[in-house]
C-alpha cells in the first residue's frame, strides 16, 4: 500500500493526546500477567538445574507428589518430543529432557495449593545429575577440545573442520577486499568483545493456564505475541490451535524478550494434569537465569581508509553465542555491520557457537548493536589517527540511494545523509568539552518489517468507534492506532477505543516485534477505516437515491461528490451509525494482510561523557538521538522509543553484563548486581525526529522501535575512548575495565 501523495496534511496524526491506557496504569488498575486469578487456582513453581551442564540421570518426584496440597508434578518426560528442530528447542528450553544445558534450566515443575507447599515440593524432588564439563565463553567454545553443548546441531552452511559447537555460519559482501585495502592509507584491525545483556523489562514473566476436562484451554500471559504463544503452546501440548485461547495482559516491558515462551507450556501441562487453573510467576532470579538475554560476542574488524577519509574496504568476523541452542542472530549482525556505508569492497562473516548459557532471545534489532559497535569503533579510531572529523567522514561515506548495500540489495530512498546533516547542524556537535571529557558519534541501522496483521473496526450506533487489533501495546500503540483511525474517519480521537484482542477474536497477527506495529497495524487500520467508510458512503447513497460513486467522505461525513451528484446536507458518521439497524445492520471495516514495504531505518547518536581517571567511572553528560520516523504518528512515543534505546544502550555500554563464575553459574541474577541505568545516572536524552516519508505506507510511517538500540554502544565507546585517551574494546566499559585500560 503506497504512500498517499495527496495526504500530506494531517489533523490528528502528529498530535500528542493522552494515551488511552494511561489512567489505568498510573492508578494501578491495569492488569499485568501476575494479576490474573481464577477460582481454584494452584501455584506453579519450577525446579531449575544448579549445574551449567549435566546429564539428568534420574528424577524422583514421589516424595513431592506425596505432600498434601501438591496436585501435579511434571518433568521432561511429560512433554512429547518434537520432530521439528525449532519446536524441540523451544520445548526443551522450557523443560530439559536428557541434559541440563545451563544454570537455571528447568528440570521439573509442581502445582500446589499454596506457594509454601509448592516450594516444599520442589525441595522434595530428587534429581541425580552427572555433572559435565561446561563452557560459557564464545571463544573457548570454538576451540578444539571444548565441551560439546549439543552434538549434531550444525547447519549445512558450517564449513567442515569447525568445532561441533558451531551451529551456523554466514557470509555477506561484495568487491575485492585485497584491492580495497591496497588503496587505503591506513588500515586498522581490532578485536572486540561484548557481554550478554538482558532486556531488563520490569515485569517478570507470568501466566495463568486453565485446562478444562473436555480438552479446551485458556491461557493469560504477558507476551509480545499471543498468536505465536498459541502456535508454540498448542504444538508443545499437542492440541488444536482452535482449542487454546490466549489472552495477552498488559505488558511491563518486552524489548524482544517476550517474543517466545518460557513458562506457558509448563503451566498448561500442570493445569492439564491437575485439572485446575495454574499460575506461574517468575522471580527476578529466574528471569535472569532462564529467559533470553542477548548473544555474547567476540569480533574482529579491519577497515581501510584514505587520508581524506574515504573508506576503501571493510571486513568483519563476528562470533556470536546464543547460548545452549542454535540461533541465527549472527545473520542479522553480519548484514547490518557495514550497512551505513557506501564501500566498494566489504565482507562480513558470522558464526554462532553453543555455550552453556540460556537460550538467546531478541533484544531490539537482534545482532546489530554488537556488530555496529565494532565497526563504528574502528571508523572512529581511523578518524582520530588521520585527524579527520568523524561526522564529515560518515557523511563522505554514507550509504544513499543507489548504494550497493553491504548485505546485497541496492538502496532505494534512505534517510541516513539527512540524519547525519541534522546531527552536524545541531549545537550539540560543536559544544565545548572540558577535561577528561569526550564526544562520541555512531550511525545505526535496522531493517524493520511488516508481517501478518488483522484489524477490525466497528462503528457503534452512538457514533463512536471500536478498533480491535492483535498486537500487545508495548510502546503506546493503542494511542497511535486510535490517531490513525481518527484521522481517516474524521472523528475525534476520544471517540475511538482501541483494544488488543485474544487469539479467538481476530485472524493471526505476528508478534509485536520488528518495529512493525505502528507501521503494519496502522496500515491495516487505515484500510479497515476506508472499508467502513465505503460502507457508510453506500448507506448515504441509499438515503439520497444516488450512486455510491457519487458520494465522498469529508471531515467525518458523507457528502455529495459534486454538483452533479445532487444537493444534500452532509450525513455524519454519527447519523449514519444511529440509523444503521434500519439501513442494513451493523457497519464494520476489516483488513487482513501480510504487510511488506517497511523500509530500512537509520539513526545517529551523539554523546558526551566524562571519565574519572581516579575511579574509572563514566558520567554521561549529554546525549542526542537523531532518527528518521517517516511520519511520527504520536511524537511522544517516537521520542520515547529513541530515549529508551539510548538509555538501554548506556546500560549495555557501561555496566550491564552476564557474569559467569568458573563453575558456570550466573553470579549476578538480580538488579542489585546487574546494574541498569536509573534516572539519576542519566541526562535528559534529547531527540530530533526527521520525517522522510516511507513510500511503503499511506501516511509515510516507518518503524522506530529497534534502531535506537543500535548506535549507543559505539557512540559511548567512542566518547569514552576519546575521553580516556585509550581505545576501549570490550563491553561493558565498567570502572574496573576502564581503570585497567588507563593503566595500560
Amino acid at each position, binding site marked *: 500500500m503506497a504512500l498517499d501523495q495527496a495526504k500530506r496534511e494531517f489533523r490528528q496524526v502528529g498530535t500528542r493526546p493522552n494515551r488511552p491506557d494511561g489512567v489505568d496504569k498510573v492508578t494501578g488498575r491495569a492488569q499485568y500477567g501476575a494479576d490474573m486469578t481464577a477460582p481454584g487456582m494452584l501455584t506453579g513453581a519450577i525446579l531449575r538445574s544448579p549445574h551449567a551442564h549435566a546429564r539428568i540421570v534420574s528424577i524422583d518426584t514421589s516424595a513431592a507428589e506425596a505432600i498434601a496440597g501438591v496436585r501435579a508434578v511434571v518433568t521432561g518426560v511429560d512433554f512429547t518430543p518434537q520432530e521439528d528442530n525449532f519446536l524441540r528447542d523451544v520445548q526443551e528450553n522450557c523443560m530439559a529432557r536428557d541434559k541440563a544445558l545451563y544454570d537455571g534450566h528447568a528440570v521439573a515443575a509442581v502445582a500446589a495449593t499454596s506457594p509454601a507447599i509448592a516450594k516444599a515440593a520442589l525441595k522434595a524432588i530428587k534429581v541425580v545429575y552427572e555433572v559435565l564439563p561446561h563452557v560459557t565463553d564464545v571463544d573457548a567454545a570454538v576451540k578444539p577440545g571444548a565441551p560439546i553443548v549439543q552434538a549434531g546441531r550444525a547447519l549445512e552452511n558450517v564449513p567442515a573442520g569447525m568445532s561441533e559447537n558451531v551451529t551456523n555460519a*554466514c557470509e555477506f559482501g561484495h568487491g575485492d577486499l585485497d584491492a580495497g585495502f591496497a588503496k587505503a592509507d591506513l588500515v586498522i584491525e581490532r578485536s572486540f568483545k561484548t557481554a550478554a545483556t538482558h532486556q531488563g523489562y520490569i515485569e517478570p514473566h507470568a501466566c495463568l493456564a486453565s485446562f478444562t476436562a473436555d480438552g479446551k484451554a485458556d491461557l493469560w500471559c504477558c507476551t509480545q505475541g499471543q498468536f505465536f504463544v498459541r502456535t508454540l503452546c498448542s504444538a508443545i501440548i499437542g492440541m488444536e490451535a482452535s482449542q487454546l485461547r490466549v489472552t495477552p495482559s498488559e505488558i511491563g516491558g518486552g524489548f524482544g524478550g517476550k517474543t517466545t515462551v518460557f513458562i506457558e507450556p509448563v503451566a498448561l501441562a500442570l493445569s492439564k494434569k491437575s485439572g485446575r487453573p495454574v499460575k506461574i510467576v517468575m522471580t527476578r532470579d529466574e528471569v535472569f537465569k532462564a529467559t533470553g538475554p542477548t548473544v555474547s560476542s567476540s569480533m574482529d574488524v579491519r577497515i581501510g581508509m584514505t587520508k581524506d577519509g574515504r573508506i576503501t574496504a571493510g571486513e568483519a568476523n563476528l562470533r556470536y553465542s546464543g547460548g545452549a541452542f542454535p540461533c541465527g542472530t549472527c545473520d542479522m549482525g553480519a548484514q547490518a555491520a557495514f550497512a551505513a556505508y557506501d564501500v566498494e569492497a566489504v565482507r562480513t562473516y558470522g558464526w554462532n557457537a553453543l555455550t552453556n548459557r540460556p537460550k538467546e532471545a531478541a533484544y531490539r534489532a537482534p545482532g546489530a548493536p554488537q556488530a555496529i559497535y565494532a565497526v563504528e569503533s574502528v571508523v572512529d579510531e581511523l578518524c582520530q589517527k588521520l585527524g579527520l572529523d568523524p561526522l564529515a567522514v560518515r557523511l563522505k561515506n554514507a550509504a544513499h540511494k543507489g548504494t550497493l548495500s553491504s548485505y546485497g540489495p541496492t538502496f532505494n530512498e534512505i534517510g541516513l545523509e539527512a540524519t547525519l546533516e541534522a546531527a552536524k547542524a545541531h549545537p550539540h556537535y560543536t559544544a565545548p568539552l572540558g577535561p577528561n571529557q569526550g564526544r562520541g558519534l555512531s550511525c545505526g541501522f535496522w*531493517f524493520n*518489517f511488516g508481517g501478518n496483521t488483522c484489524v477490525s473496526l466497528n462503528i457503534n450506533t452512538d457514533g463512536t468507534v471500536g478498533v480491535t487489533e492483535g498486537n500487545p501495546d508495548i510502546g503506546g500503540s493503542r494511542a497511535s492506532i486510535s490517531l490513525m483511525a481518527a484521522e481517516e474517519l474524521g472523528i475525534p480521537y476520544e471517540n475511538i477505543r482501541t483494544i488488543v484482542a485474544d487469539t479467538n477474536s481476530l485472524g493471526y497477527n505476528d508478534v509485536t516485534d520488528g518495529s*512493525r506495529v505502528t507501521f503494519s497495524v496502522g496500515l491495516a487500520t487505515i484500510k479497515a477505516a476506508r472499508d467502513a467508510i465505503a460502507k457508510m458512503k453506500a448507506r448515504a447513497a441509499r438515503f439520497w437515491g444516488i450512486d455510491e460513486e457519487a458520494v465522498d467522505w469529508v471531515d467525518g461525513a458523507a457528502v455529495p461528490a459534486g454538483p452533479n451528484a445532487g444537493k444534500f446536507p452532509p450525513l455524519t458518521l454519527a447519523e449514519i451509525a444511529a440509523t444503521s439497524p434500519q439501513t442494513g445492520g451493523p457497519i464494520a471495516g476489516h483488513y487482513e494482510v501480510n504487510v511488506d514495504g517497511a523500509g530500512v531505518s537509520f539513526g545517529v547518536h551523539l554523546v558526551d561523557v566524562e571519565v574519572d581517571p581516579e575511579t574509572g567511572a563514566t558520567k554521561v553528560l549529554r546525549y542526542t538521538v537523531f532518527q528518521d520516523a517517516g511520519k511520527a504518528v504520536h511524537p511522544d512515543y517516537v521520542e520515547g522509543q529513541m530515549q529508551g534505546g539510548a538509555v538501554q544502550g548506556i546500560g549495555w555500554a557501561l555496566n550491564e553484563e552476564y557474569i559467569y563464575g568458573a563453575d558456570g553459574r550466573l553470579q549476578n541474577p538480580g538488579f542489585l548486581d546487574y546494574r541498569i541505568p536509573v534516572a539519576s545516572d542519566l541526562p535528559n536524552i534529547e531527540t530530533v525526529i526527521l520525517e522522510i516519508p516511507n513510500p511503503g505506507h499511506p501516511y509515510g510511517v516507518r518503524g522506530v522501535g529497534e534502531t535506537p538500540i543500535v548506535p549507543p554502544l559505539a557512540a559511548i565507546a567512542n566518547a569514552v575512548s576519546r575521553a580516556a585517551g585509550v581505545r576501549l574494546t570490550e563491553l561493558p566499559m565498567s570502572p574496573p575495565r576502564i581503570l585497567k585500560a588507563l593503566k595500560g
Partner: protein
Amino acid sequence: MVKVKLWGTLRHWTDGQAEVEVEAATFKEVLDRLSELYPGLAPQIRRGVSMSLDGVIYREAWFQEIKPGQEVVLMPYMQGG
C-alpha cells in the same frame, strides 16, 4: 529470466556464482526454481528466506510479481525484537 543475487554463504551450492538466472515471475517461483536447480539451497529455503525487490524487502510474499529488469536479492528470513 530473473537474475537472483545470493548472499555469500549460498554460493557454496551454486559453484561459486554470486548471481544465478532462473525462469520465474514470482517470489515463489524463484524459490522453487532455485531449489530444483541448486538442491544444496533447499535446506536454507525451507528454513526461510526473504527477498529484496528493487530494495524493498519482502519477508514471505510468494505471489509478489517480479518484473523484467528488477533487482532480486535473496536474504535470510528477517528477524526482529
